[in-house]
Every structure is written in structure tokens, then in C-alpha cells.
């Protein structure tokens, strides 16, 4: 397994952990979706893979990349993991680039200073990458500053930078959320293209379950720092088992769909809300007494697992 996260719990003050007992895996060549509302901990998972933990956070569990536990790596090992094995594409491309340095510096810095390539070679590779991500006039772009480029172009630059190290694992944290639809479509196609070509493992983070279902092989649905359902995309989309997943799918209207739009009532919980039982229970239409008192165990369902008391009750019937 390329990436395997086991029982990852991250606490940083607050009444509940940011992540609780998260298990997640990504195989080589696989695109795995990670879906959840704002604040559910998606970025925290991706950052944990690079050991970028929130300040004063305590992390328990294991984050294995190619069998090595990232959380217990020494500094040298961590640097080489960050430099060569795992690359991340960030939520906001504009703030991921140093505003006072040129695009070219951003692209070559990693190759020169962490991978030890020569300046000339790095420059050539950067030009190649810019062309590969569909930037016109790469020579000019290399000399420009971030504020001279549009959001879509910056996103391409960030993707090019992520590919510069020839990583095995790509973490795409809402890589397309800030883009308009056409740019978004181009970027998605681009990512998918390089992913397939290089057989990368990709963790694709988004809050859009429909997009994830269409784009990914498998999907993890995250709620308040816990994985509530993880299944192959098609199965999850066709037959969501967790009420939260079903609720998310019902939030988006679809053409020709006679069902009314049903937003999930209530708000996503903050770090101040602690739960004795299922975190989704207060917003769940099907909640029973057990939901509020004990955390639901993860139950095997078709193709994956889901954590819900109701499914456990149904299980013997199927």
C-alpha cells in the first residue's frame, strides 16, 4: 500500500479531537476521494501525511507511506519524504506562492535545494512541466511574479511544482475548488492525465460528493473528524449507506430528478462540540436512542465500511 493511515487521532485542545481514529489507504495508481463539510478535518488528514500538524497538536496512530511511519521519521527522513515521495497541491494557489519571488524560483527551488539537481537542468525541467500543464509561453511565466498570473494559471503552476519531484503520492487539497468551471474541468482532466500516466496514487480532497463520485475510484466520507463511510465511488453514489452520505447526495439538485432538495438540518459541529455517541446523531433524521450514547462501530457493507448504529441493526437481514 502506498499510503496507509491507521487509527490516526489528532488532538489540539478543543473539546474533541480534530481527527478521531481515522483509517484510510491509497494504493499506487488509485484515485481516492476524501469528502466532507468545511471543518471536518480533510486538510488536516492531508497535512498529517506530510507531518504538518497543527500547533501544539498531539498525534496518535500511524501514517505509513511506503511502509514508513511518517509520524516517527527523523528530520532527514522527513525531509526526503517531503522532497521526493509526497507532493501536495494546496487549497489556495495564491497563498502557496511566495509573492516576492518569481514563478521560476518557486519551481526550481525544490529541485535544486532538496533534490540536488543542477540549476540548468532544473530550469529545463520546469519549462517542460509548465508546458505539460498547459501553460503557454513558459519562458515568460518563469520570469513573472505570482500577482501577474490568474488563479487558474497559478493552480497550474502549483500542479507543475507538485510534479517536479516525480512523487509517488499526490495530495490534492481542493485543488480545483477556487476555479471557474471550465478551468476546473481542464485542471481535473490534467490531474487525471498525469496521475494515469505516472501511476500516481492520489488523495483527492473535495467538499463536492458528486464530483468525487465521478472522479475517484474510492471515497471516504468524513464527518467531524471521523470516517463515516468508505466505499467504491459507484457503490457509494448508487446506494449510500450512512445517513450523512445520503444527506450530502440529497443536497445537490439534479436535472430530471423529481426529489426536492433537502439540505441537512443543523450546522457542522465545531471543535467545541463533544460527542458521547455518533457525531452526526443531532442532525440525523433516523437517530435512535443508542446513537446519542455510544459511538457507532465500523460495519462492513458492500465494498467497504460504514459507521452507523442503524446499519448494524440491518446487517443480519441482508
Amino acid at each position, binding site marked *: 500500500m502506498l499510503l496507509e493511515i491507521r487509527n490516526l487521532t489528532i488532538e489540539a485542545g478543543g473539546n474533541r479531537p480534530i481527527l478521531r481514529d481515522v483509517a484510510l489507504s491509497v494504493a499506487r495508481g488509485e484515485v481516492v476521494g476524501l469528502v466532507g463539510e468545511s471543518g471536518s478535518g480533510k486538510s488536516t488528514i492531508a*497535512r498529517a501525511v*506530510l507531518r*504538518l500538524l497543527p500547533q501544539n497538536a498531539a498525534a496518535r496512530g500511524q501514517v505509513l507511506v511506503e511502509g514508513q511511519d511518517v509520524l516517527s521519521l527523523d528530520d532527514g527522513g522527513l*525531509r*526526503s*519524504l*517531503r*522532497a*521526493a515521495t509526497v*507532493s*501536495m497541491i*494546496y487549497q*489556495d494557489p495564491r*497563498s*502557496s*506562492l*511566495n*509573492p*516576492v*519571488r518569481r514563478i521560476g524560483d518557486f519551481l526550481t*527551488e*525544490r529541485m535544486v*535545494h*532538496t533534490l540536488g539537481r543542477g540549476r540548468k537542468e532544473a530550469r529545463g525541467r520546469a519549462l517542460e512541466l509548465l508546458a505539460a500543464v498547459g501553460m503557454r509561453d513558459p519562458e515568460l511565466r518563469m520570469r513573472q*511574479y505570482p*500577482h*501577474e498570473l490568474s488563479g487558474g494559471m497559478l493552480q497550474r503552476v502549483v500542479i507543475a*511544482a507538485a510534479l517536479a*519531484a516525480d512523487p509517488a503520492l499526490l495530495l490534492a487539497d481542493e485543488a480545483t475548488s477556487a476555479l471557474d468551471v471550465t478551468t476546473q474541468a481542464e485542471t481535473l482532466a490534467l490531474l487525471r492525465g498525469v496521475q494515469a500516466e505516472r501511476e500516481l496514487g492520489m488523495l483527492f480532497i473535495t467538499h463536492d460528493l458528486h464530483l468525487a463520485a465521478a472522479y475517484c475510484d474510492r471515497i471516504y466520507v468524513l464527518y467531524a473528524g471521523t470516517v463515516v463511510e468508505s466505499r467504491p465511488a459507484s457503490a457509494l453514489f448508487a446506494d449510500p449507506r450512512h445517513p450523512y452520505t445520503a444527506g450530502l447526495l440529497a443536497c445537490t439538485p439534479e436535472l430530471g430528478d423529481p426529489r426536492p432538495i433537502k439540505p441537512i438540518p443543523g450546522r457542522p459541529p465545531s471543535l467545541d462540540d463533544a460527542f458521547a455517541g455518533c457525531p452526526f446523531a443531532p442532525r440525523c433524521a433516523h437517530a435512535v436512542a443508542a446513537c446519542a450514547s455510544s459511538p457507532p462501530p465500523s460495519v462492513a457493507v458492500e465494498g467497504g465500511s460504514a459507521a452507523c448504529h442503524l446499519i448494524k441493526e440491518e446487517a443480519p437481514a441482508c
Partner: protein
Amino acid sequence: MVTRVARKVAGLVATLLATSFVIFGAAYAAPGDPVTFLAGGKENLTPEYLAAIRAQYHLDDPFLVQYLRWLGDAVTGDLGRSLKYNDQVGDLLTARVPTTLGLVAYAAVLFVVFGVALGVLAAVRGGRTDAAVVAGTTFATSVPPFVAATALISLFGVQLGWFPVGGGGSLWHLTLPAITLALGALAIISRVTRQAMVEQRELDHVTVARASGLSERLIVVRHVFRGALGPIVTMCGLVTAGLLAGTVTVESAFQLSGVGTLLVGAINTHDFPVTQAVLLLMVTAYIAVTTLVELVQPLIDPRARSRS
């Protein structure tokens, strides 16, 4: 770029004109009739003598005429004649400006090097180092210059004999005065450096750089410090500009004949041509330095280039 510089220069000229007017006006409105001082004492006050002096110095002309005459002379390099030394003011200044400029430049090098280094140290190490830097530099700044001067003279000048205790002429002579002058700026420069670095360190792109496997040293140099450079350069420039007009105490403590002591002497003896010239010079130097700082900013931050 060219129009920007031109506009800048026009602004500068206007500022200088306004300041010169204020300076001249202040001397004009100062209490006491200059004639009394010009005549050199009450016993000389015969009406004929007074009238002769008034004519010589054009003191009966209207204010505006006097100002314009003075301004015209100043522009052509004639700053008048000192009443006390009976010398050209220009000559007096040329004799003294190098000392003051040297002193300020030396002090600037010291506080930039040590202030920035201490600030970087405080930001990078944090914790106790940070607290020690704050305590140390705050103490250094709060010691009045004449006390610091006395302490430095008695320790390094008298006890150890490493440096001469007074007089100018060489870098050697200027060392203790420059240290005294720089001490006062250490706290603010190290604070600004630390603060700017801490702010930069929190930015996303620094985390991104760290996540790409860059070593911590490179992150500090290439991202954090590079990003903090704008405020640091601005503050160093402003402090240097301020020092240009604040060398009096240090000059007199170390018996340096610089512009500061010249100004104090001129004020005490009502030597108004000298007073006016020195003040004008100080304002010009201040404006020159701050303008330079402003012109350097776009080189540091490319966003400032396209904005203007």
C-alpha cells in the same frame, strides 16, 4: 519608472521649499532683535551703527523679500556668513559634515548588523533567547546616550585604553561614539525584524516551502527573511534619517566637532545664518534618506512595482 521618479523629485522640491520657509520664518520670528547680537553688545548701540548693520543685513526689507533673497543665495550655494565665526557658513559645514555623516553611517552599519541579527535570532530561537534579546535591547535603548557615553569612555577608553576618548578624524575615533548612537536604535530594529519574521513565518507559502522538503535554514533565509525585508529596510532607513538630526548629545560627549555641536553653538549664540543652514541641511538629509528608502521598496517587493 521615469515619471514616477520625476513626480517624486517634484514632491521633494516642494517639501524642501515649504521647510525652508518654516525654518526662515522661525528664525525671523524668534524673540530678540538680531541687530543686538550683530552689534556685539549693548555698549555699541549707537543709532548710526545700528542703521549700518540693518542696511548691511537688509533687515529693513519686508519678510518675503528677505526670505527670497536668502533662498536665492542658498540655492546658488551661498549660505551666508556666520555671525560668530565670521566665516562662510558653507565652509563651516564642509568642515563638519564629514564627521557627522561618518558617525551616522558607522552607527547605521552597527545597528543594522546587530539589530537585524538579534531580531533574526529572537524570531528563530524564540523562548528564552527572544526574552533575553528583548530585555537586552530594551535596556540598551533606555540608557541615556550621555550615560552610555560615559560608561563606554571609562571602560574602553580609560580602563582598557582600546579607543581614544575624544576627538574625531578616524574610524578609530568614531567607534565609541558610533556604538553609543547605535545602542539607542538596537531595540526598535531588532523588534521590527523579529515581528516581521514572525508574521512572515505564519504565511501559507512558508508552510508550502517546508512541505516541499526545504531545510529550515533555507526557509528562514529564502522565504521568511526575504519576506520580512520590506519592513526591516524601511525601519532602518527611518532610524538612520532620525539619527542625522540626533547626533548632538553624542558629539558633545565625545568632543566631536560635527554638525550637531555646530547647531547647538549657533542657537546659543543667536548665529542665525548657521542655525538656518544646519536645520535646512538636516531636513534635506532626512528627506533624502526617506526618499531613498521609498525608491528601494519596489526592488524588494515586486507588487509595489506594478501598483505605481
